[in-house]
C-alpha cells in the first residue's frame, strides 16, 4: 500500500476548478515530484493533501486512512508536514520560536535532538537562532521553512517551490539537503518550477497541466521525454 494516495481528486477555488481527477501515489521512502507551469495545480495539490483545500470529489488517504474528515490542524499529527509556497515563516517570531512552532503538534516534548538535526542540516539557522525570522534573507527563510516542517518529525514532507527566489548556490544546497532529508527516511512530495533539479533528485514524477496529470513516469524517463524537455526544461 502506498504511503500517500490521491485518487481522482477534484478541487475548486470558489467556482474555478483547480484539480481535475488527480491521482498520485507516494511510496514510503520515495521522492516524488510534481512539475508543471504556473497555475497547473501543483500548489493546490499540496494544499489539498494538507487539508487547507477540501477535495470536492475523490479521496486522499495516508497509510490507508481517509484524510477527508480530518481537520486541517490534525493532519500534521498524522505525519504530514508542509513547507508551503512563499515559505510563510512566522515573521515576528524568532528562528527558535518558529522551529518550536513546527513541533507544536507533538506537545511538550524535549526538542534538543530535533534542533540538533535541523542545525546539522542548516548550520546557518543556528547562528541566527535569536533573530526575528522576518529579517532573515530569502535563503535563510527557506531553510527555516523546511526546518520548521522537519520539527514535526513527519513521515511525509510536502515541499512547495523550495528553490524559488534563491541564488544558484543556495539552490544546490537546498537540493542536497532534500536528498539528505530523504536519507533520514522521510518520503517527500516536491513541487518545483525548476524541473531539471527536481527530476535529478526525484525517483518518480508527474506532469500537471491545467489541473490534470498529463504524464506520469520515472524521473529518468521524464527527463528524456521530448514534451517535458521542451515545455519545462527550456529546450528548443
Amino acid at each position, binding site marked *: 500500500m502506498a504511503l500517500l494516495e490521491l485518487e481522482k481528486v477534484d478541487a475548486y477555488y470558489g467556482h474555478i476548478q483547480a484539480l481535475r481527477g488527480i491521482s498520485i501515489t507516494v511510496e514510503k521512502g520515495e521522492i516524488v515530484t510534481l512539475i508543471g507551469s504556473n497555475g497547473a495545480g501543483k500548489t493546490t495539490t499540496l494544499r489539498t493533501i*494538507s*487539508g*487547507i483545500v477540501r477535495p470536492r470529489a475523490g479521496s486522499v488517504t495516508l497509510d490507508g486512512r481517509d484524510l477527508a474528515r480530518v481537520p*486541517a*490542524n*490534525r*493532519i*500534521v*499529527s498524522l505525519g504530514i*508536514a*508542509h513547507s*508551503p509556497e*512563499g515559505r*510563510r515563516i*512566522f*515573521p*515576528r*517570531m524568532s528562528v527558535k*520560536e518558529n522551529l*518550536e*512552532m*513546527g513541533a*507544536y*503538534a507533538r506537545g*511538550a516534548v524535549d526538542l534538543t535532538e530535533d534542533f540538533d538535526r535541523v542545525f546539522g542540516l542548516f548550520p546557518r539557522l543556528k547562528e541566527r537562532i535569536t533573530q526575528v525570522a*522576518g529579517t532573515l534573507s530569502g535563503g535563510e527563510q527557506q531553510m527555516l521553512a523546511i526546518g*520548521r516542517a522537519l520539527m*514535526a518529525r513527519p513521515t511525509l514532507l510536502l515541499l512547495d517551490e523550495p528553490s524559488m527566489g534563491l541564488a544558484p548556490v543556495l539552490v544546490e544546497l537546498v537540493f542536497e539537503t532534500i536528498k539528505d532529508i530523504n536519507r533520514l527516511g522521510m518520503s517527500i512530495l516536491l513541487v518545483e518550477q525548476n524541473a531539471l533539479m527536481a527530476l535529478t533528485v526525484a525517483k518518480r514524477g508527474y506532469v500537471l497541466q491545467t489541473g490534470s496529470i498529463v504524464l506520469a513516469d520515472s524521473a529518468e524517463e521524464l527527463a528524456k521525454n521530448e514534451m517535458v524537455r521542451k515545455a519545462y526544461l527550456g529546450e528548443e
Partner: protein
Amino acid sequence: MQVVCPGGSGELVAAALIIGLSNGALIALIALGYTLVYGIIELINFSHGDLFMLGTFVALTVLAALGLEGGAAETPWLALIAAILAAMVFCGVLNMLAERIAYRRLRNAPRLAPLISAIGVSFIYINIGLFWRGPSPIPFPDLLPDFEFVRAITGADTLITFTTKDAFIIATAIPLMLGLGWVIKNTTMGKAMRAVAQDREMALQVGIDVDKVISFTFLLGGLLAGAAAVMHGLYNGNTVFTLGFTAGLKAFTAAVLGGIGNVTGAALGGFLLGILGAMTVTCYGGEWENVGVFTLLVVILVFRPTGLLGEETPER
C-alpha cells in the same frame, strides 16, 4: 506653564497627571481587549465597551449579595476580590460565547459581516444593561479607604492627591498587564496566539487548533475588561448602562493610537489618552476633554497611520 496650561499651576498639572494615570490604566485594560481581538482576527469588537459595562453590573450584584451595596465601615478586601473575580470570569466567558455564537461562523465572510454582527452584540448588551438596572446612573459603593498619601507623607496642604483608589488601580492594572505580556510571550497558548495572528493558515498547518486559540484570546480580553469594570466602579463611584459607549470609544481610540494589534501599544495608548484627557480637563475645562484626546489621535494618525507602535505588516 501658563502657555501650555492656561488654567493651571504646576501643582494642578501634577494632580492631573495622577488622575490621568489611573484613568489611563482603566482605558488601557479595555484597549487591550480591542487590540488582542483585532490582532488575531482583524475584527473591531464593537461590543467590548458594553461588555465592560455589564462587568460593572455583575460586580454590583456580587457586592449587593454580600450586603455591601450601601458601603462598609472597613474595606472588605475579600468581597472586593470576589467581585473582581466574578466580573472577570463573567466578562471572559461572555466574550468567548459571543465569539462562538456571533463571530465564528462569519470568520471567512466579507469583513463587514462580523463587524455588523459585533454592533448587534453591542446593542444586545446595552439593552440587557438597561433591562437589568434601568436607565439612571447607579451608585457604586465606596469601599476603598480615602487615604491620601501625598498629604499624609508631606504634611503639606496640596492639590496633588494620590489616594488608596489610585494605588489600588495601579496595583491591580500593572500586574494584569505584565501578566498578559508574560502569557503571550512564554506560554504555549500565547505562542499559538502569536502564530495565529501572524499567519492563520500556517498556524493550522503546524497543528494549532485555531478556534481554540481565538476563543482563548476573547477570554483574555474579557478577563481584563471585567477587572477594569470593578476598578472603574470603585474609582468613579457610579455606573450606567450607557457607560460602555464612551469607555469603549476611548479604549478603541487608545488601541488605534498605540497601533491596533500591538499589545504594548494598547497599554501605552491607554495611559497617553488618560493623561492627556485629565490634563485637558484641568487646563481647559471638562468640555474640552474629547477635543484634546481626539486631536491627538488625528495628529498621530496623520503622521503615523499605523499608530505609535504599529508596524506596517508586510504582505506575504
